[in-house]
């Protein structure tokens, strides 16, 4: 599973402070740590409280790239900030994210085509997050079709079926699983899939257990990637085991270590 490391995010106090003070220390530290722990991409989010998102994004992209060569996932609802970040990325990045709303898709897919970026597409539109799988798959198909019109291949897309906390929207769980399966039937090549893993456990007890259980269930249903905490050892161990059971890696006794150390 492709791990998009979630930690460089202004939602976290240390990163918010680092952005505010223009202090590269914590950003370097988290970039290195997540890479060491096996992240494949680093999510870059200036946080909700930033008053100058474009400048903050530019700074965060440059500072992160000083510490890690991993590709970045530029995470913002402000597309000017994403575009400013894309210009600075040393290698093709990922845009996080766009909903299935025409005006936004036109802006984001044009940008993705220009910079060769991958895109996380959200299975939602102006009406919000659908309740069932059918609607979600319908929106995923709109994302795939619109991307295609901009010359973006389906496998450059990561469709996020959108996960709600399991304590407030329990009935969404099975719908998300079905969505993950059916997204793979939209096109050939199929789009990839992703989730914001920790959303499933917002406000619950035993968050790590819920996160990793969800991760392996979703993998069995076709999940390709997740925005997650790469330093959660138990999560990484569960993912490593799921990869063995799904015949994605050849078993050996050190299978957990091999998976965790794949970036080193």
């Amino acid at each position: 599973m492709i791990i998009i490391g979630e930690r460089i995010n202004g939602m976290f106090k240390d990163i918010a402070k680092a952005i505010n003070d223009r202090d590269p220390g914590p950003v370097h530290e988290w970039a290195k740590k997540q890479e060491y722990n096996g992240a494949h991409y680093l999510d870059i989010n200036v946080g909700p409280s930033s008053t100058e998102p474009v400048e903050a994004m530019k700074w965060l992209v440059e500072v992160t790239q000083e510490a890690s060569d991993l590709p970045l996932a530029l995470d913002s609802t402000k597309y000017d900030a994403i575009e400013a970040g894309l210009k600075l990325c040393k290698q093709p990045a990922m845009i996080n994210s766009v909903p299935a709303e025409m005006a936004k898709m036109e802006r984001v897919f044009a940008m993705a085509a220009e910079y060769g970026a991958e895109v996380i597409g959200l299975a939602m539109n102006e009406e919000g997050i659908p309740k069932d799988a059918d609607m979600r798959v319908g929106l995923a198909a709109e994302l795939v079709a619109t991307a295609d019109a901009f010359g973006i291949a389906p496998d450059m897309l990561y469709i996020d079926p959108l996960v709600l906390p399991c304590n407030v929207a329990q009935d969404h769980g099975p719908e998300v699983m079905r969505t993950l399966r059916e997204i793979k039937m939209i096109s050939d090549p199929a789009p990839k899939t992703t989730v914001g893993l920790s959303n499933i456990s917002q406000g619950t007890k035993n968050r790590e257990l819920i996160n990793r259980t969800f991760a392996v269930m979703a993998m069995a249903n076709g999940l390709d990637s997740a925005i997650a905490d790469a330093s959660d050892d138990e999560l990484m161990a569960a993912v490593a085991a799921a990869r063995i059971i799904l015949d994605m890696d050849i078993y050996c006794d050190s299978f957990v270590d091999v998976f965790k150390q794949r970036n080193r």
Partner: protein
Amino acid sequence: MAVEILKEKYRGKVGEVVLGATKENGGTRSHTITVGGETALPFLHFEGEIPNRPVVALEVWDINPEWNPCFDDYYGDVYDDAGAWAKKCVEEYGADLIQVRLKGADPDLNDYSPEDCAATVKKVLEAVSVPVMVIGCGKAEKDNTLYNPIAEAAAGENLVMGVAELENYKSVTSACMANNHVVIAQSPIDINICKQLNILIAEMSPAMSSRIIIDPTVAALGYGIEYSYSIMERARNGALQGDKMLAMPMYGNAGFESWRQKEANISDEEQPGWGEQAERGILWEATTAMAYLQSGIDILVMRHPEALKVIKGNIDDLMKDNSY
């Protein structure tokens, strides 16, 4: 409209390993041999690169091996002299490299000392200029006493030494690490152990991960060849899909295994219906080796010069570019 042929694309690549060392690199070989480097399944030149041809070794023992009498015409005069034997293999029979099997070190046979064994290896190195592989007698306790003296005596030569096994890999690996030799990692027809052993060796020294040759254990035709084949196929597929801990060149003792079997050895008198013994044995060995070429082997260790000739012709054919 032209038909577009579907081609498989692989992410991974088998690592390249250099065998032997010339004067510039501290050895005395006239040339080195590079194995591995494949980016496609065996001989599918149209899907990727097969940059190095598989190579064929002949085996030399440090005692009279008491092989089938059909070998007497080829090696009978040199059984008692490993150097002359090796020279004959290279100069007359066209072996790409030599594998010395130190069978005489076996405590139940001649119980040769580590010094005797190092001297034998030196003798072979002096007699031939091709890269040399050295394996022990097969009894771990004794073999562990041999590795260091041999590795030191041949320091700089970039030998291939073996064998490392899951329960006994440290001695030979540290001897190779300290003296820059290549190690043979042997697993008993088991992909999981094969991968685990490579990991353990690489853990001892990351530099060793590019100095491992996989011996998946090859069986002879009729004795489980399909098991070996499927393990090697799985390892190579894993390597091409990016599993670095399986992305090493592979090696197999096709000669040794084939000539252990009755089909290669039983006389014409005993089995008149099976065809003439010498020819039958050669074919048994060549057919076994051919199957392993198809499963991705990089180094074949053979025994009969006529079988080697057949296989070299086979490799010539398979290395012809079939890309389009």
